């Protein structure tokens, strides 16, 4: 079956800076694939290339099986882009923004009317039907921005850190809407700084560093690559003693900044951890099941 998006060994240089260094990724129909990585790792560059906002220097991108380089400007209709900053027309009403973009994509009058009503309803924008976009809160503007990205029923929805500029409540609302899109079969490529966002929304995640994919797989697959069932985070003035005790117990140890992370072979409770570390100078300890953050630290290192 043809993948919605297939990126094959692409390279991009900005001057002497090699931003993408053999990046490859495949996105199948109905998948939500997350790109995670630190600032400057090339996530947004990948998205810009997919949206034809940037050319690539080597490699190939196939969209619905066709080379991106051979698709005309009309092929932009295959992709919908939603970035963190909602770029909309502030003096127009929400539906007027939707109608405007629908016309740019060539939707017929009847289809346009139907689609605008459908999206106004789906994104619960009817209550703000008579409010100019510039007067909406950031969260509602982003909701509308997401709706605009979907106006032409794209084959691939590209979300570039869609919730990073909104407050927590709006973020939760947007997550719910994106989950709805995922459940209705929309294919999504998403970048995010929030590991919890990726964990909640993505069916597959690609972890990036220095312009290439270091690890990719489903959340379960990535979690399985952490050599432990649970993680204990320990704060102590005496790292050496903690390290020695962990080695004695056969636990693997990771150190990130001031924090010691013990990768536990079983799911211990907090009492058992405290007992096991008895006699060392522990000032704080917590234990939790392995998360995507642990997988990220294990496979990429550093913070996303």
């Amino acid at each position: 079956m043809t993948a919605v998006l297939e990126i094959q060994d692409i390279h991009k240089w900005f001057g002497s800076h090699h931003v993408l260094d053999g990046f490859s990724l495949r996105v199948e129909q109905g998948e939500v694939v997350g790109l995670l990585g630190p600032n400057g790792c090339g996530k947004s560059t990948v998205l810009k290339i997919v949206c034809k906002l940037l050319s690539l220097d080597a490699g190939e991108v196939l969209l619905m099986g066709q080379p991106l380089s051979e698709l005309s400007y009309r092929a932009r209709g295959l992709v919908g882009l939603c970035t963190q900053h909602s770029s909309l027309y502030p003096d127009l009403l929400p539906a007027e923004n939707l109608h405007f973009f629908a016309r740019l994509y060539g939707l017929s009058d009847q289809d346009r009317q139907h689609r605008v009503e459908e999206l106004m309803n789906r994104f619960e924008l009817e209550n703000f039907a008579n409010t100019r976009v510039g007067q909406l809160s950031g969260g509602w503007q982003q909701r509308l921005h997401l709706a605009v990205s979907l106006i032409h029923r794209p084959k691939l929805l590209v979300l570039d850190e869609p919730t990073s500029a909104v407050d927590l409540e709006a973020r939760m609302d947007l997550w719910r809407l994106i989950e709805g899109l995922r459940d209705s079969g929309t294919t999504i490529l998403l970048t995010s700084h929030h590991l919890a966002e990726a964990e909640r929304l993505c069916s597959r995640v690609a972890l990036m560093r220095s312009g290439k994919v270091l690890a990719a797989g489903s959340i379960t697959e990535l979690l399985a690559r952490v050599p432990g069932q649970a993680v204990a985070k320990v704060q102590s003035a005496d790292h050496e003693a903690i390290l020695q005790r962990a080695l004695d117990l056969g636990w693997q140890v990771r150190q990130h900044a001031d924090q010691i992370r013990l990768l536990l072979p079983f799911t211990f409770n907090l009492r058992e951890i405290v007992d096991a570390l008895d006699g060392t100078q522990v000032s704080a300890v917590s234990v939790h099941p392995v998360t995507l953050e642990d997988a990220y630290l294990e496979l990429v290192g550093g913070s996303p």
Partner: protein
Amino acid sequence: MQSSQLFLLQTRAVAQRLLLEQWRQKRGLIFWAVFPSTMMLLFGLVYAHNASMRAGLDAAAAGILVGAALFFSCLGGTVAVIAAERERGTLHRLLTTPLHPAAYFLGVVIAQLLLALMQVVMLYSIALLIGAQYHGSVFLGGVILLLSVFSYVGMGFFLGARFARRSEEVVVALSAIGVPLLVLGGTFFPLEIMPQGMQNLAQINPMLHMNQAFKGVAAYGMGLHELRFELAFLVAFCGLSLALGVQSYRHLLDGNKSQ
């Protein structure tokens, strides 16, 4: 949908959106109407007060329309559109759609043409009410206005794409560039009262030729033959400014793509 149909639909969408935005910006709309109307009324009062200058009223009406109203409306309006698209990030968003660059360009031209038409009606209504007269061919006058609007929009794209990065800069840039051009273009004073050096300099000012061409038709009833030099200059300038505008707009799009 065929490419030509899509092109027309996109052009209409851009023009409609710009007009709707203009309509919603009530304060801007008031200034858009008040500025040329006030100028017309003030000049009308001056000419009415001095019987010996009465003949100058017809030329003043033509000069204010081409030199002041359309300059600020079409050139200033286009620069403001580009600066706003840039500032709001909508230019970047438009690049992700199948909007044809020429459809966008044409959409802006159509919106500015319609706004210009409204200014012509508004300003000439006031001018006729206070006693000014239109003497020449309406068709020729229309052609000159059309060429002037195209020239202004082309220059607007050029200035907007190359220089105006923020909306606030538009007012400053227009004042800095526009007002000297208006003065040297004979909008406010006849060229004859200027020193010879200024008169020579004015000859390379395209606004002078727009002014003289439209004044020639509207105030003195001149025809195609008498205005051939002004018209030739205007056609050449229109072509140049549209070419510059298109080239600058492409440059802007390429720049935005790589951001």
